[in-house]
């Protein structure tokens, strides 16, 4: 009986987290299209509901009622598994994101490693989809994205090491609390820029959207997908983008801390600050999509391996030596 109670409590908590995440994913798609449109002096989706807010809902309904086509020559089990894997991985990562000092589903010791591991597993949804489709364009898209995500993960990992050197703990709440006096975006600003660009590449956003470069590969790994399975890929991708924004705001922008530690700002709950910071980063993501042309593939690899990797490694050495010589290393 006790176990059942615990299980129901946990399910209640999980639903309380997941439903807002899913709704905000739908809203964020609308925001993305809106920002994109405004940069190009268009209106964007503005017909369905007030300001077009219900556009994503309408799209979702459309996808639900469309037929799911499974190609005859595809590997059926893996073909169906791929969008499920993408979606699941994009959602389970939210378990460790702290929305306040106590408002976190799982406050684990190695939270940042968990996030990093889940985001590095994200490549499997794409590879599985690309391979199981048994078709040229999806396969090329999958190969591209696998190479791209593996390369940019390396630099993200090293940037995370930079932050961890300043914190001395792998717990996400500790990382947030370490920024009480100064957000890490100030001392580690170059790393923040590199993290932002690597996050763009990690989530296959423009200008690094080579896996689904529509000019060359139709839609990359999603080419053979239709209906709800396509929508799941899509939702998973946006949930991943939101996750990367959340990770960026936790690592560099102080997570749920309020920017000014004064009376009226203290009253606003930490979760709201985190959401505002995520939105800020997401609008930057959307702006980048609108104003930057797509990279060529060799340039993308060059940027990842020859520029970001050495730069972030050098910065690790710099941070470590600075902390060591000024005796600022966090005590365990």
């Amino acid at each position, binding site marked *: 009986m006790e176990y059942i109670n615990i299980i129901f409590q946990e399910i209640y908590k999980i639903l309380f987290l997941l439903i807002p995440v899913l709704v905000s994913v739908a809203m964020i798609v609308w925001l993305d299209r809106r920002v994109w449109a405004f940069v190009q002096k268009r209106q964007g989706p503005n017909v369905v509901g007030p300001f077009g807010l219900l556009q994503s809902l309408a799209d979702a309904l459309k996808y639900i009622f469309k037929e799911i086509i499974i190609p005859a020559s595809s590997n059926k089990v893996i073909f169906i598994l791929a969008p499920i894997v993408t979606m699941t991985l994009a959602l389970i990562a939210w378990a460790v994101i702290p929305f306040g000092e106590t408002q976190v589903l799982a406050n684990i010791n190695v939270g940042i490693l968990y996030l990093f591991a889940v985001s590095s597993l994200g490549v499997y949804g794409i590879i599985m989809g690309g391979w199981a489709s048994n078709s040229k364009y999806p396969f090329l898209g999958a*190969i591209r994205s696998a190479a791209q995500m*593996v390369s940019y993960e390396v630099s993200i990992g090293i940037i995370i090491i930079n932050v961890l050197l300043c914190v001395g703990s792998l717990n996400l709440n500790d990382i947030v609390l370490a920024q009480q006096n100064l957000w890490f975006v100030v001392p580690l600003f170059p790393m923040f820029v590199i993290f932002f660009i690597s996050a763009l590449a990690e989530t296959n956003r423009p200008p690094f959207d080579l896996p689904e470069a529509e000019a060359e590969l139709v839609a990359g790994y999603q080419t053979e997908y239709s209906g709800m399975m396509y929508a799941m890929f899509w939702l998973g991708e946006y949930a991943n983008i939101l996750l990367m924004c959340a990770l960026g705001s936790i690592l560099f922008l102080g997570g749920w801390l309020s920017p000014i530690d004064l009376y009226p700002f203290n009253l606003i709950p930490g979760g709201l600050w985190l959401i505002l910071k995520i939105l800020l980063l997401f609008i930057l993501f959307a702006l980048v999509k609108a104003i930057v042309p797509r990279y060529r593939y060799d340039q993308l690899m060059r940027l990842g391996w020859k520029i970001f990797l050495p730069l972030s490694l050098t910065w690790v050495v710099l941070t470590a030596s600075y902390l060591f010589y000024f005796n600022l290393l966090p005590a365990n």
Partner: protein
Amino acid sequence: MAHAIFFYTFSIIAVISAIMVTASKNTVHSVFFLILDFISISCLFIMIGAEFLGMIMLIVYVGAVAVLFLFVVMMLNVAQQKNQWFAGHQSSRHIPVGFIISILIFFEIIIVIGGWKYKPEIFDINNSTAQTTLSNTHSLGQILYTDYIHVFQISGMVLLVAMIGAIVLTFRQRSGVKRQSYIKQISRERAEGVEVLEVQNNKGIKIDD
């Protein structure tokens, strides 16, 4: 009780997927089973309280190594391979070698586990300064980067040498490869690319020689 349920679930998944790695005929499927195996083993690591090792297992093996496996295996033609490996006669030569290696590994495991079971003082872990009060990330860092830093550095060097060796062995200089120079492409001026010519009527122009 919950602990036991999770333990048996994960270990059954691990064992079955390990068997399926060798049993499945499609090589890509075996890699996917291998990934499932890695994931369930990292879950087992987390269950015994080694959360750092579990996460590193996920990041390194599943996030990087298995992706490269998949990369290689997906490039192979699976249907063609099936004919070669499962219907051909060539495979019989490799079977004895495989048997010898697996018997060796089996005895090694017996020695390690048996020794640990019956002579625990040989594998005394108390001579390191690992403290039980620290979290396991801290104590691993203490052992690797403080107590055995030189050994750790040397093993890193060995790996680096191996990596450079592999690159040197497989590197070949091909002639006639057209390379794109990044700087050249950006610093191109209009004058280099476009030339405006005065074309005379009924005469035409010869551009290339």
